[in-house]
């Protein structure tokens, strides 16, 4: 999530997430709401990009890094909080363009995204570059596409890999919906099994479309988020990752909502074919946004896989 208190960009493609993980964008602080289990920190990568990271879980827990999708964090991040309750130390970086920092001007293409992901992990003091064990990676949607690229580039730099409904492949017989032509009201039906749940989650804090300033904030936030995502998803979300997937030999879990209307079953099959060693699980009653629709089921599957 990328809301702020100073009128800066906020929200998901068509609405505001709720503010349960809202906090300071500088330094380290607890979440601003009493119930939030997340600490929000800012790390500066060696490239010089300030990056926000949500952190939760026991400080001595096994670290895991979770990369969000093209909607950004929707607020609450219940799935990640639940995962932390299983004893994992969860780090959830916010991609440039999705937060107050303006690092997206440094990110032009897939390599930039993948290297930035690795840079943030290094800046967090995790992984081999800091003398520690390879860190496990979780990615969702666009975040899974980038996670797969990161591991393909540096297989020994990472441990286990969880891919939840990854973008990144293109099947000509199953062209996916163009998310860049979707009107705001169309996203819940595309991304969620339960449209009502999706509408509520994507609307979050709500945008008052009678308020010109609110519309302007929404347009700016939307432009930054999906504009940045467009660098690897527009016009077709295929940056030839398929050529490099053979390099991934890490233990991998593929997780898919059983009602993913953006990435239907042939895509899950294609990933299973490309990553023959991967375990695959289906989450029932879930669409593309399975971590938000079925956070408990997703967290349970992840915890089992990551702690095995």
């Amino acid at each position, binding site marked *: 999530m990328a809301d702020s208190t100073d009128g800066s960009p906020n929200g998901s493609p068509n609405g505001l997430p709720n503010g349960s993980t809202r906090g300071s964008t500088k330094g380290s602080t607890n979440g601003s709401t009493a119930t939030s289990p997340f600490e929000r920190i800012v790390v500066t990568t060696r490239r010089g990009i300030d990056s926000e990271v949500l952190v939760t879980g026991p400080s001595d827990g096994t670290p895991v890094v979770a990369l969000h999708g093209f909607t950004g964090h929707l607020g609450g991040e219940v799935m990640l909080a639940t995962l932390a309750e299983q004893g994992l130390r969860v780090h959830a970086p916010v991609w440039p363009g999705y937060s107050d920092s303006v690092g997206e001007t440094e990110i*032009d293409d897939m390599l930039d995204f993948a290297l930035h992901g690795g840079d943030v992990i290094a800046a967090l003091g995790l992984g081999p570059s800091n003398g520690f064990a390879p860190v496990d990676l979780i990615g969702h949607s666009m975040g899974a596409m980038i996670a797969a690229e990161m591991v393909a580039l540096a297989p020994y730099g990472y441990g286990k890999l969880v891919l939840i409904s990854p973008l990144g492949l293109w099947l000509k017989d199953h062209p996916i919906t163009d998310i860049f032509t979707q*009107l705001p009201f169309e996203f819940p039906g595309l991304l969620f099994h339960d449209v009502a749940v999706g509408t509520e989650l994507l609307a979050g804090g709500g945008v008052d479309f009678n308020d010109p300033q609110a519309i302007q904030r929404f347009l700016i936030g939307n*432009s*930054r988020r*999906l504009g940045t995502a*467009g660098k690897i998803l*527009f016009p077709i979300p295929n940056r030839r990752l398929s050529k490099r997937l053979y390099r991934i030999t890490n233990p991998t879990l593929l997780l898919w909502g059983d009602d993913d209307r953006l990435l239907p079953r042939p895509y899950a099959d294609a990933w299973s074919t490309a990553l023959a060693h991967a375990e695959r699980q289906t989450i029932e009653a879930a669409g593309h946004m399975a971590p938000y629709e079925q956070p408990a089921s997703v967290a349970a599957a992840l915890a089992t896989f990551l702690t095995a």
Partner: protein
Amino acid sequence: MAFRTNVGVAVKFTWFNLMPWPNLPDDFREKNRSVWVDIPSRLFDPVKANRVYNEYMDQLEYAEELGFDGIGCNEHHQNGYGIMPSPNIIAAGLARRTSKAAICVIGNSIALYNPPIRVAEEFAMLDCISGGRLVAGFPVGTPMDTNFCYGQIPALTRDKYYEGHELIMRAWAEDEPFAFDGKYNQLRYVNCWPKPIQKPHPPVYIPGGGSIETWDFCLDHDYNYSYLSFGGYLAGKKLLDGYWDQVAARDKDDSPYRAAFAQIIAVADSDAEAEELYAEHILYFFNRCLHVYPGFSDPPGYRTISTIKAGVLDQLRAENMRVFSNLTWKDLVDGGYVIAGGPDTVIDRMKEMITTLRLGHVFCLMHNGNQPDWKTRYSTKLFAEKVMPQLRNMWPEYDGDDRWWIHPLEDRVRADETMAAARRHPQLPTEAAE
């Protein structure tokens, strides 16, 4: 003042044809979601296009005959109101068949050419063939054309455009091959061959739809800013006011020739006759040709943050376009979308437009929608003979300011004369020489 080199330069009128497809069915709106990007190509009939293209080019040539200063074309892709994906092809035909008018290509979307040196080459060819009559337009391009039809990444489009512009202008300026190491273009040997006649380069026009960065870009380089919209001059005033404010803020002179504006115009013998003759065709344009799916109009990342913050919204925005379908002829005329009527009415409204928007250049959209050829010629002739002469000397304080106009060769080739002379060459055998 230094620019007063050509006393007598006055408001310039360029006759423009968007080249709409005139055969969209009556139920087009109901059966199709967009006139642009994913318009069904089965609606295009190449056999009918043979006549359509030639008729449209005839009209452009006719405009020169009548004394229009320029004739104009532009670039759109997969678009029911513009069947001109390559304006340079049209311009090449016009360059051969005309001899006086400026050939205004408004323009080539330079981010779409790979590499953009192609634009430098083709524009140079057009300038040479026409004897120095090219006006070179460099649009960033609409989201429909640039992003959805031609696949450019929205957030990188403007960056790529700036690089293309740098490459083209440098290619025209340099006399030795050079290496260009760009982010989007790497060329070891840039060597523009041919070069344009006009030095240092043909007049450059930057068509804009509402991005405020474009104002500064024009002022940085002293290019003409051309506001192209179909919203008409009353709606256009807000944006032009912003432009002129920026001209003042940048401490530039306020020559009206810095600005151009596109306006739909229709002239008849009387106001009533104008409605009778043109209403159905102009309504065809607004109701069918501007039926653009809202999801194509504003992909995230295309518009810069500062433009969003400025609240300057493009006339092509979906919400604005949807309004068009509900407009009546009276709405179109009263709202300034269309300047139509008898000569006196048109003169009055043109004067109001030229004065309030501070225009030195007007792009006259005089063929609209499915308007038949004879009506287009009738309207064009009336404008040229009865309206245009009354609008010439509206900026006496800037008389002679030709910084944004063509500088053709005095002794340039006229293709009709040279072809005739070539046939009569004394050394040709009699039968070959006819």
